[in-house]
């Protein structure tokens, strides 16, 4: 490791009462990397995201982003440093039109900072961002209330809200779950474009095939512990991983 990593997680632990959700988690993320985070249900993937983004405070351990210790900081402060995430369970503001859902991230001080204190016309920026993630401009979907949007669009909206914050690191928690193959195929180019822009990405996925096609590296969690870390093909060959996934995915 010559260059300092963008994100460094060291000796991270989290207990919920008696449940050891995360145990001794260590990993680094290099700038520009696309890291896959996989593991069976309940293995601690979402919890690790919650720890990194400040929604949950660790029992022990340290998280360093761009050389700054961000362990236990408030989520909004972590966002301002340049980490954005999506939620596994998308909960948009249902009664608002899709593009109005974008206003809240666009109201963020981080965006203000990036644009030199001027947002311009937030509605227009919102529509541009939505177009980037596949809300066709002439189709009026962006104007429909979130409550009538199909899952595919809700996931895109969730992604657009994260992109709006212009983060350096984007963490996507099961963005592909509940989507059809065609929908996944249409979102993959958006992610690839983000990488070309130099963004670092952590993707949590159960859709391994789709993930392995784009991930540089994969970390496997099982019962809160890291059991493998490396190139996708190598990782899936390891016995520990085969055991953990036995009966879950062939």
């Amino acid at each position, binding site marked *: 490791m010559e260059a300092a990593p963008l994100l460094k997680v060291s000796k991270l632990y989290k207990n919920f009462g008696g449940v050891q959700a995360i145990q001794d988690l260590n990993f680094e993320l290099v700038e520009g990397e696309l890291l896959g985070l996989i593991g069976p249900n309940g293995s601690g993937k979402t919890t690790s995201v919650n720890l990194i*983004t400040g929604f949950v405070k660790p029992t022990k351990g340290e998280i360093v982003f761009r050389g700054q210790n961000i362990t236990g900081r*408030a989520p*909004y402060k972590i*966002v301002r440093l340049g980490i954005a995430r999506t939620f596994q369970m998308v909960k948009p503001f249902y009664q608002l039109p899709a593009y109005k859902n974008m*206003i*809240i991230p666009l*109201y*963020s001080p*981080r965006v203000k900072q990036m644009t030199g204190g001027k947002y311009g016309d937030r509605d227009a920026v919102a529509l541009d961002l939505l177009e980037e993630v596949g809300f066709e401009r002439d189709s009026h979907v962006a104007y429909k209330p979130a409550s009538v949007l199909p899952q595919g669009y809700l996931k895109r909206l969730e992604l657009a809200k994260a992109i709006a*914050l212009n983060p350096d690191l984007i963490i996507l928690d099961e963005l592909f779950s509940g989507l059809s193959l065609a929908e996944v195929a249409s979102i993959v180019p958006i992610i690839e474009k983000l990488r070309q822009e130099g963004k670092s990405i952590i993707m949590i996925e159960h859709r391994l095939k789709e993930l392995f096609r784009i991930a540089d590296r994969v970390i496997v969690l099982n019962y809160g512990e890291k059991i493998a870390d490396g190139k996708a093909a190598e990782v899936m060959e390891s016995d520990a991983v085969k055991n953990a996934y036995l009966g879950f995915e062939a």
Partner: protein
Amino acid sequence: MGNAELNIGNRKKRRKERIDRGIKARSSDIFALSSWREMLYLAAPRLLPIVGLLVLSVALSVYWQRVLLSVSVFALLAISWDIMAQTGMISLGQALFFGTGAYLSGTMNHYWGWPPYITIPLATIFGGLLCTAFLIPVLRLRGIFFSMVTLVLPLMLVRIIEATRIFGGTEGLSGLTALPSKWVELYVLIIVLLAVLFGFRRMMNSDFGLVLKGINDNDRSVMNAGINIYWFKIQALFIASSIGAFAGAFLTHVYLFVGMPVFALDYSILPIASAVVGGIGTLAGSMLGAFILVPLSEILRGLGGLRIVFYGLFLVVFTVAIPEGIFHYIQRKYHQFERWVEVE
């Protein structure tokens, strides 16, 4: 377009269909404004409260003019409650804001002899700051825990005043300076009420208001946008408590007295009842609720002990019959028409 499905006995299935009136569709596009009728359709909801209040102010008898003052004060408290509710803070203690404003202006007037046009604005701002400071430590509490604190605080302040005999103790402070005339009283209050209604309605519909409503809806999602939700809650709280403090400060110079009753439960409960009957989330509904409930309570005064029974009955009937609130109901009727259509 919300559609209610019904199945009555073994008659044919039908459902209610709601359709935007043509005039609404036409006039939501600003370029389409072509006729006076459409202009009026758009302007009427804004003109109604203005014209209504002006007509009332001259048409009413002296007694009912006093009632109008009290109605307007409760309307302000209801709007203040509604702003908090829309930001996810359910308050049971509008009396805290009201009483703090009342005591601040009363004190400044009684001890330092400052005139109302100084004490009322100062009490509004410092009352807002003081109440916000009181509640900041509990802003992190969720739901009922926050509500409980707001309920208890005014009751505690009353006991402190009683026990320490500060600010006149149980006697209160009397002989305060009056406003120049009953017309000044009436029109200052009406202008402030209309300004608060239109100004904060606009605010709640702006992007800032969207963030506040977002906090109520899903605070994690707002935090996740890099927004400090406590800072936004503090701003909403300051706005709401300043409105309440103004109401208290103003009424102090109408009654020329301030005492322990300003922290009474009435000032906490009636605003909530108004907002619920009128309709939460529009500010206009909360105000409308106060304009129904307060005069009703006046009319029922003759019933003596039974007053509260009829009052309660009325509340129940209204909340059961129109759970969405009267304002939402009227708004829907204004913008949409309904027809029954057969299903299949």
